[in-house]
C-alpha cells in the first residue's frame, strides 16, 4: 500500500508508477508544455509550464481513453512566496475506469497573474477556483462566476497570502480582536 | 326539524332569561362554548398535545412548571400576553389585525350549532350541518388576510397554499357529510344524535349500522385534517419550508389567537365527525339484558361527557397522525383531494343513496 514507502527514493511504488505512466501519455502529447515528473512517494505531480495550454491538457486528461481523469478530487491554491508566484494544485483520479492518480500544479505571477479556468472541464473546479480566488487573488480566466465565496464580497485583501495584512476595521467592526 | 320535547331544555330556558331587558341568557349560551374552547385549548389542546407528542417520541414533555408541567400552558399564555404585539411597518395594518380575528370568529361561530348535550345547543338550526360546514370555511378569509397583510413572502406562500388546500378539501368533506345527512334524513345537528341513539348503544351509530358509512367517515376525517391544516397536510405552516407559514410575522396575543382558532376548529371537526357518524352525545354502551347500561349513561350530563370524549378521541388521532407522518407536497395534496378523495366521496354518496333507498 502507499503507506509503506521505505524505499521511496530508489524504487517507485506501484502507485507512483501508475502516475508516471499517466504522465508519460500527457508528456507525449504536450511535450515541453509540462514539466518533468516529480516522483515523490506522497503526491507525485507535474507542473504545467505553458499555462495557456492548461485547459487543453485538462480536456485531454479527462477525455483521453487511457487517462480518463474524470474526477477532480481537490484544487488547492498555494502561495509560493520565494518564487513570487501563486499556484494551484489539483488532484485527479479516475473513478470507475483506472486506479491511477496524479497531481498537477499550475502557477501564475503573484501580482495580476491569471490561470485559465477548468470549471468547464470539471464542475468541481467552479467553487474550488472561486475559493482559491477568494483566498489568494489569482484570476481564473474564463470562469463563469468568479466571485468571493467564503469571505464577504467587500473584504479587502486575500487572506491566505503569506504577506497578508489584515484590515483594521470592517464596517466599523475591529477585525483583529 | 321539530325537536322532541326533552331536547334543548337547558339552552331554551337560558336563552329566555333576561335581566332588565338585557338578554343575559343568550350571552351565557354564547359564553359556554367560548369558555369551553379556552379551557380545552389550554388543557388538552396545548398541554395534551405536548405530552402526547413527547410520549410518542420517548420524551418527557413539559415538566418544569407545576407538577408534571401542568401549568405550562398558563406560563405560555403569560408569556404571550407580555410579548410585544408587533405590527410590521410595511404590513397592511388592517388586514394584519383583522386576519386572526376572522379566523377565530370563524372557528368559534361554528360552535353555535354544536349540541353539547341533549339539553344544550347554541342554536338548533334546521340547516345546522350546512351552517357548520359553511362557517368553518370563513377561516380561509382570515388566513388569506393575515398572509397577504403580513407582506412577507413566506406568509404569502402559506396563505395561498392554505386557501387552495381548504377550498379543495371542502368538496370531499361536504360530500362525505352529505352521506351522513342522507342517512339521518336531516341537516339538524340534534336530529343526527336523536336518530343514532337507542337502547343498543353503538349499534345505532351510522358507522356500525351502515357498512357504507366507513367510506365517508374516513374521507371526512382525512379532509378535516386538511381543513384544519393539521399534519400531514400542514403545508400552509410547514415549518421546515415556510418558517411558520401564514403566521410568520405574528407575535403575542395575535399569535395565540391563531392557536386558539386552530384548536377550536380541531375540536369542531372532531365533534362534527362524531355527531354525524358516531352518534354525538348518544351513549355507545348497549343495554345488555337487564343491565340497562345505555339508559344509565344517557342524559344531559352524560351526553356532554360522551360528545367531548368522542371529540377528544379524534383529536388524539389527529395528534397521533401528526407525530408519525411526514408532510405531503402541494401537488400530492391536490392529487389526494381530486383524484382519490373526491371520486371516492362520490362513490360513497351513490352507494349511500342506494342503501338508503333499498335497505
Amino acid at each position: 500500500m502507499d503507506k509503506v514507502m521505505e524505499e521511496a527514493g530508489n524504487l517507485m511504488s506501484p502507485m507512483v508508477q501508475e502516475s508516471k505512466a499517466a504522465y508519460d501519455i500527457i508528456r507525449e502529447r504536450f511535450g515541453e508544455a509540462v514539466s518533468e515528473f516529480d516522483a515523490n512517494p506522497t503526491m507525485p505531480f507535474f507542473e504545467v509550464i505553458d499555462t495557456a495550454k492548461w485547459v487543453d491538457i485538462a480536456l485531454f486528461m479527462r477525455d483521453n481513453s487511457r487517462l480518463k481523469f474524470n474526477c477532480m478530487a481537490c484544487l488547492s491554491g498555494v502561495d509560493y512566496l520565494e518564487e513570487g508566484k501563486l499556484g494551484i494544485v489539483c488532484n485527479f483520479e479516475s473513478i470507475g475506469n483506472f486506479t491511477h492518480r496524479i497531481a498537477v500544479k499550475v502557477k501564475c505571477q503573484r501580482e495580476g497573474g491569471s490561470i485559465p479556468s477548468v470549471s468547464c472541464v470539471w464542475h468541481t473546479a467552479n467553487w474550488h477556483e472561486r475559493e482559491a480566488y477568494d483566498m489568494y487573488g489569482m484570476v481564473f480566466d474564463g470562469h463563469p462566476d468568479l466571485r468571493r465565496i467564503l469571505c464577504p464580497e467587500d473584504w479587502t485583501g486575500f487572506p491566505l497570502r503569506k504577506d497578508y495584512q489584515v484590515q483594521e476595521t470592517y464596517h466599523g467592526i475591529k477585525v483583529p480582536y | 326539524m321539530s325537536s322532541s320535547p326533552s331536547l334543548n331544555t337547558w339552552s331554551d330556558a337560558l336563552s329566555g332569561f333576561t335581566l332588565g331587558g338585557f338578554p343575559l341568557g343568550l350571552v351565557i349560551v354564547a359564553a359556554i362554548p367560548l369558555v369551553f374552547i379556552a379551557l380545552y385549548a389550554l388543557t388538552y389542546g396545548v398541554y395534551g398535545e405536548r405530552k402526547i407528542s413527547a410520549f410518542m417520541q420517548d420524551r418527557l414533555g413539559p415538566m418544569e412548571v407545576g407538577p408534571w408541567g401542568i401549568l405550562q400552558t398558563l406560563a405560555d399564555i403569560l408569556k404571550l400576553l407580555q410579548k410585544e404585539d408587533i405590527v410590521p411597518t410595511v404590513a397592511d395594518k388592517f388586514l394584519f389585525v383583522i386576519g386572526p380575528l376572522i379566523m377565530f370568529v370563524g372557528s368559534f361561530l361554528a360552535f353555535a350549532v354544536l349540541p353539547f348535550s341533549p339539553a344544550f345547543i347554541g342554536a338548533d338550526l334546521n340547516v345546522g350541518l350546512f351552517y357548520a360546514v359553511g362557517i368553518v370555511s370563513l377561516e380561509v378569509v382570515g388566513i388569506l388576510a393575515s398572509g397577504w397583510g403580513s407582506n412577507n413572502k413566506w406568509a404569502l406562500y402559506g396563505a395561498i397554499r392554505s386557501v387552495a388546500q381548504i377550498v379543495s378539501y371542502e368538496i370531499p368533506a361536504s360530500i362525505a357529510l352529505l352521506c351522513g345527512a342522507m342517512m339521518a334524513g336531516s341537516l339538524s345537528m340534534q336530529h343526527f344524535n336523536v336518530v343514532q341513539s337507542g337502547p343498543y348503544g353503538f349499534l345505532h351509530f351510522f358507522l356500525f349500522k351502515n357498512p357504507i358509512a366507513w367510506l365517508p367517515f374516513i374521507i371526512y376525517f382525512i379532509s378535516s385534517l386538511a381543513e384544519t391544516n393539521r399534519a400531514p397536510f400542514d403545508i400552509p405552516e410547514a415549518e421546515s419550508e415556510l418558517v411558520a407559514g401564514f403566521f410568520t410575522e405574528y407575535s403575542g396575543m395575535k399569535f395565540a389567537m391563531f392557536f386558539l382558532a386552530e384548536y377550536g376548529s380541531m375540536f369542531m371537526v372532531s365533534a362534527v365527525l362524531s355527531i354525524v357518524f358516531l352518534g354525538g352525545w348518544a351513549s355507545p354502551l348497549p343495554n345488555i339484558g337487564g343491565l340497562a347500561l345505555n339508559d344509565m349513561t344517557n342524559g344531559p350530563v352524560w351526553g356532554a361527557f360522551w360528545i367531548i370524549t368522542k371529540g377528544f378521541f379524534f383529536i388524539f388521532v389527529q395528534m397521533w397522525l401528526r407525530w408519525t407522518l411526514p408532510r405531503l407536497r402541494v401537488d400530492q395534496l391536490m392529487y389526494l383531494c381530486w383524484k382519490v378523495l373526491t371520486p371516492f366521496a362520490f362513490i360513497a354518496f351513490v352507494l349511500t343513496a342506494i342503501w338508503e333507498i333499498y335497505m
Partner: protein
Amino acid sequence: MQELGKAELNTTRIIRQDDNRVVIEKDLDTEYMVLSMGPQHPSTHGVLRLECITDGEVVVEAEPYLGYLHRCFEKYCEKIDYPAIVPYTDRMDYLAGINTELAYCITVEKLLDIEIPRRVEFIRVITAELNRIASHLVAIGTYGIDLGAFTPFLFCFRDREIILSLLEWVSGARMLYHYVWIGGLSYDVPADFKKRVSEFVNYFKPKVVELQKLLTENEIFVKRTKGIGIMPAEVAINYGWSGPMLRGSGVKWDLRRNDPYSIYPELEFDIPVPDGKFSDVGDSLSRHLVRALEMDESLKIIEQCLDKMPEVSGFDPRAVIPKRIRPKAGEVYGRAENPRGEVGFYIVSDGKSTKPLRCKARSSCFVNLSAMKDLSKGQLIPDLVAIIGSIDIVLGEVDR
C-alpha cells in the same frame, strides 16, 4: 443534467449582470420573486443561504451563499503546530469528528512515514465507524424533519446519545473528541469497551429496523423523495461528489475500498448502492437509502473489529507519537471516507518548521453542495428542501 420538466422557463431569461445582480427579462406576465432562504431558516441545516428566484412555488434558480460559518481553518493551520491542528479538524465536521481527525492524521502520518500499532488502527476504525453511525443518524433524522416527520428525528437522537456516551467514555469529550492523534490515540479504550460496544450493536440493530419502518418505508416519505433531485452518475463524478451522494447515483466508490487506509482492506463489508427498485437511481431517496444501509455496514465493520482487535496488556497508544512533529519537506494529499464523503487534506511541509506551510481541507460538503444550483432548477420549494436535506451538509465543514 436531466431536464425534469417541471417549470416551463422558455419565456423568461435570467441574466446575471457584471455587478452580480440578477435581472430577469420576461415576456409573459408571471412575476418572479426573489426569495432569500436562510441563513436563518429551519431547513438549511445551519447558516446556508439560498437566494432563490421563484415562479410561484417553482424555483427558477437557487444560488447558494456560503461563508457565514467561515472560521479561517486554513489560515489558522499556518500558525499552529501539526498536532494542534487536530482539534480544529474536529470543528470542521462537528458531526463526525473522529472521521475528520482520522483523515488529517493519516495524511500527516503519510508525510511522516510512520508505522501505526495494529491495536491503534482497530480502535480508530471502531470509533470512526461509531461516529459514522452517529453522523448518519443525524442526517436521517434531520431529513425526516425537513419532510415534516418529527418523531424519527428524536428516535435518531436518542440512539446517537448512546454513541456519544460511548465516545465520551473513550475520548473524554462528547462531540469534539481530539481522540485520534498523529501517530496514535490520546487514550487506550476502557477495559469494558469491547463488551459495551457489542451490547450497543445488539441494541441498535432493531432500532435501525424500526427507523426504516417508520420513515424510509413510509409512502409519503417515498413520494416526497423519489425522483426528486436526480443526479446522473457522470455528472455526479464531474461535480466531484463523493460518499453517499456519489453512491446514491449508482457509482460503487468508497475510499475505504478504492483508496484503502488503516485496516479496512482486512474487513468484510459491502458498499451499498441503490439498485433502482425502491428508488430511482440518483434521486434524494437513493441518497437517503445509502445512508440508512451504510449504518448496517458500519455495524458489520464494528463487529469484525471487535473480534479481531488484538489485546495488548499495558498498551500505550501514545508510544509511537513523535516527540516533535517536523515532517521532511514535501507535499501530500491524504483523504478518508467521511460520512459525508471524501475529506482530504493537502499539506505542504517545508521541512524546517513544525507548522505546515499550507494545509488545505477538501471538504466533502463543499463539493457536494456545489451542485445545488443544477439540482434545484425547476423544482418546487418543498422539493428544494428535500434536496438540501439529502445533500446532508454540515456548514462547519462547508465553510471551514
